């Protein structure tokens, strides 16, 4: 493991490709988790979004449009693809995570732990505003918020270490959703019956962050 790893725009695009592929491999996991407390469309929604994201990342032509050869443009491509192709609450929320996060690191040439901390904080703020939710309502925020805190605490350290902590914190957050009662979204009407199940969106956050962690561990 290279402790001084930072990612340029090309590396960020490659990392996001591996994120998309990891989510696509786990579509059935998301479907089954959502069937337990929702209407079962989270997996196929994420499939539409991340397939479009892969396509969009592949179409970034840096020779033709050098202005797209940025860290920001890579995250933005993923966010826009998810908003347009996933649809529903998941499209709005996950798309906003990537787009609001991207906007906050417009000047970043190479992604490091500090940049990723800024990305997650801005992404989280965007999600909270768009979704009108707070932590503890059994949503993806319950995995995202602890990950954001973990990365900020390690913002002066190495990116790969920060991603390791982020993925761990998200996983702890995911497990905590098991003991939460859903108070927003379609799962809300289950009330107490939502207890014992994890939130499907929180699983997706874990998938995203663990794919980032694995990508950085391998370079």
């Amino acid at each position, binding site marked *: 493991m290279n402790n001084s790893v930072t990612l340029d725009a090309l590396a960020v695009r490659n990392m996001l490709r591996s994120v998309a592929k990891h989510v696509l491999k786990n579509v059935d996991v998301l479907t089954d988790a959502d069937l337990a407390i929702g209407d079962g469309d989270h997996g196929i929604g994420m499939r539409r979004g991340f397939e479009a994201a892969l396509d969009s990342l592949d179409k970034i032509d840096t020779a033709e449009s050098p202005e797209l050869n940025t860290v920001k443009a890579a995250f933005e491509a993923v966010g826009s693809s998810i908003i347009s192709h996933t649809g529903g609450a998941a499209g709005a929320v996950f798309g906003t995570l990537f787009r609001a996060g991207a906007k906050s690191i417009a000047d970043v040439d190479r992604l490091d732990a500090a940049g990723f901390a800024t990305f997650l904080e801005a992404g989280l703020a965007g999600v909270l505003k*768009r979704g009108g939710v707070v932590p503890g309502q059994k949503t993806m925020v319950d995995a995202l918020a602890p990950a954001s805190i973990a990365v900020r605490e390690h913002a002066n350290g190495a990116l790969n270490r920060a991603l390791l902590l982020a993925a761990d914190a998200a996983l702890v957050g995911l497990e905590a959703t098991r003991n939460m009662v859903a108070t927003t979204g379609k799962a809300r009407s289950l009330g107490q019956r939502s207890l014992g199940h994890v939130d499907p969106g929180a699983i997706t956050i874990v998938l995203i962050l663990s794919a980032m962690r694995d990508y950085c561990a391998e370079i």
Partner: protein
Amino acid sequence: MVTNKKIINDPRQVTSEMVDGLLLAYDGRVRKLDGFLALVKTTIPEGKVALLIGGGSGHEPLFHGFIGTNMADGAACGQVFAAPAPDIIHAAAKAVHRGKGVLFLYGNYAGDNMNFDMAVELAEEDGIDVRTVRVRDDVAAAPPDRLADRRGIAGDVYMIKIAGGAAAECKALDEVERIARKAEANVRSMAVAVSAGSIPETGKLTFELAADEIEIGMGAHGEAGVRREKLMTADTVTQRVVAELLADLPFSAGDEVALLINNLGATTMMEMLIVNRSVRAILAQAGIKVHRTDVGTYLTVQEMAGFSITLMRLDEELKHYLDLPAESIGYSRM
């Protein structure tokens, strides 16, 4: 997990193939926007206030089947049970706008609210005046002090009918919005289900209900209802549902109402008419007069079996817009 039989082609193409088929069924009265799952009326007069509706697919004929005379000017279609993306809504808003603003009318769900709100931001950047009315008629979704948590179900039909009539006759967006809000404040619905629907792409039922069970208060995507009980007679279940509706608004003796009984997908017309008979007996006893009845298939949840009952309290103004002749694929009445 149980999977259900469906007569489809590629499960991943159901929404786009449905939209293609719907477009053809409109016989030229509606066109599809290039590159977007959005349908708009072929002819919209200049200076007309526009009504744009939309939501997830899979509930046909809702929403995209309700474009037409004195109905909606356009509809943004999402994938099955998923709200349409903001770019679809934005494109549809631009396509129906005739200089007098656009009313967005849709069911109150987190996904719809977020995506339509993002589209409002985009449309406002284009200088389009947009107002939003969210339908929150499902009394099973939350108690009356938490209206904001209530979902939109078959009350959508009368909302589209009234807002569509108002948008056709009124010259100002303010006025259309006011009338739609009045209608929204007076509509209440509740659904019951005896078996589940499935999402075509996963093939999986969205919930499981035993052969002898009925769920009272079922949501339009299989969201859990208020109670799960042993199957009961049409008279008994109707009594339970209507009692909840009457107590909620509340409706009282002397009120005039519109009554809509909606098939969730797989219930027979015979059962629906038996339910209608029960509803009328209860309303007569409560001294409530039925001005208008609609019994049919308007908001489906794939092959879910069950029905919903909608009551809207009417005044002279709401009656006027409700009684205007309407023509669309999903709702026509002269």
